[in-house]
């Protein structure tokens, strides 16, 4: 078995119009910039994939990554907890113009819904959001004298995540806080694609150190020295690049 694929282009080739795409990252930490930009490049060349639902904690920052997907008009719905950032204009302008839908989910509920999707749990109860506007229309139940809100699993057609080291079998480790949603998203998508800074042969990762076991990963693509979204934004980068 070998889950390595040779190019970013191949990694994003099969994502169809209308797909639900989970994208790892919390702000710039863990954002798979190269995979996202490969997806944008494919859209610019072929007009596809479009009408995407994107699941991420945020809704893009600046003019790269998810913000650039939104600027290109590829995204019709965001499912996220915090659609604000240092420069949220890409999302904000389209949201206020009614061009993009928002499903706002409390951050811990978002994480647990994704985990539940990956773990085969269709619904669960959480205290979060009880009695608030975000619980409207959802079933409520009492357990041991406290009230809880029923939330449903989240699944996706594709997960695009960034990891640090990956082996041929898809076992992954991450770098510091960059893991955030990635191990959950890897479980919850039909096809999970990881860009990794370093590819090693099986045995190259200590089994005790594996964070995402390879069973959750379908494809590994090597991206040495990946871009950091925060650095790109501090350099006012755009994708695609604005002609000089």
């Amino acid at each position: 078995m070998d889950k390595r694929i040779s190019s970013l282009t191949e990694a994003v080739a099969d994502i169809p119009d209308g797909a639900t795409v989970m994208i790892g990252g919390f702000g710039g930490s863990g954002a798979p910039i190269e995979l996202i930009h490969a997806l944008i490049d494919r859209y610019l060349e072929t007009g596809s994939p479009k009408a995407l639902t994107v699941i991420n904690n945020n809704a893009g920052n600046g003019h790269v990554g998810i913000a650039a997907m939104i600027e290109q008009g590829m995204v019709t719905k965001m499912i996220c907890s915090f659609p604000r950032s240092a420069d949220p204009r890409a999302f904000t302008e389209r949201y206020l113009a009614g061009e993009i839908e928002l499903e706002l989910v409390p951050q811990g509920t978002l994480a647990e819904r994704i985990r539940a999707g990956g773990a085969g749990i269709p619904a669960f109860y959480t205290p979060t959001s009880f009695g608030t506007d975000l619980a409207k229309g959802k079933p409520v139940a009492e357990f041991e004298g406290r009230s809880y809100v029923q939330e449903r699993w989240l699944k996706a057609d594709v997960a695009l995540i960034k990891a640090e080291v990956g082996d041929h079998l898809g076992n992954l480790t991450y770098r510091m806080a960059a893991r955030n949603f990635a191990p959950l998203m890897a479980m919850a998508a039909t096809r999970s694609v990881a860009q990794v800074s370093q590819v090693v042969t099986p045995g190259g990762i200590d089994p005790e150190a594996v964070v995402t076991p390879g069973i959750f990963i379908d494809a590994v693509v090597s991206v040495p020295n990946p871009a950091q979204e925060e650095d790109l934004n501090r350099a006012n980068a755009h994708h695609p690049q604005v002609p000089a």
Partner: protein
Amino acid sequence: MTSKLSNAQIAWRAAQDIHDGAYVNLGIGYPEMVARFQPEGRQAIFHTENGILGFGEAPAPGEEDWDLINAGKKAVTLKPGTAFFHHADSFAMVRGGHLDVAILGAYQVAQNGDLANWSTGPKGVPAVGGAMDLVHGAKRVAVITDHVTKDGKPKLLESCTLPLTGVGCVTRIYTSLAVVDVEGGRFVLREKLPALSFDELQSLTGAPLHLQGDVADLIVPEV
């Protein structure tokens, strides 16, 4: 109005109630300042929602590693004993009752402990982050806030008028004028600035302040 505590002084006061070894989550913004005022000899362990426990202070400018950030997306540092984990584990720590204290900001707090701190109404882009999770699960949910709004209107109210973050969740409020507990559906005054009379404080508060034992002087150093 008489003089009031600065944001840093409110944070200092809140820090005095955090015991050694406590697991603490500080909300984005000025609750983060609480970390600076830990009393000598005590060491709390700070949690951030994006998946770090036991992180250190901000690095020097130019030393940032943007994979090592807090929930406010500011760079932090490693310390001996730092742990990383994914988001589901992070919010298990939050909702599962493992945090000793969560300290948040507030637009409004009601006398039954309802908190409004995420939305000022239907305008603009709504954003919630981890606030609705944090108000459930921590053993103590405290708020630090100015006692009144910028327009001088009370923030401590009989009931909140803004969209709620959580129902009956706040247990203590540190304000620019007082320390108030929420007990049995009412505000109980614990401390107030010595120069401020009870009646003055009551006039700046949107619900009755109850007395239960002595009211201590709220004395905070210049910080």
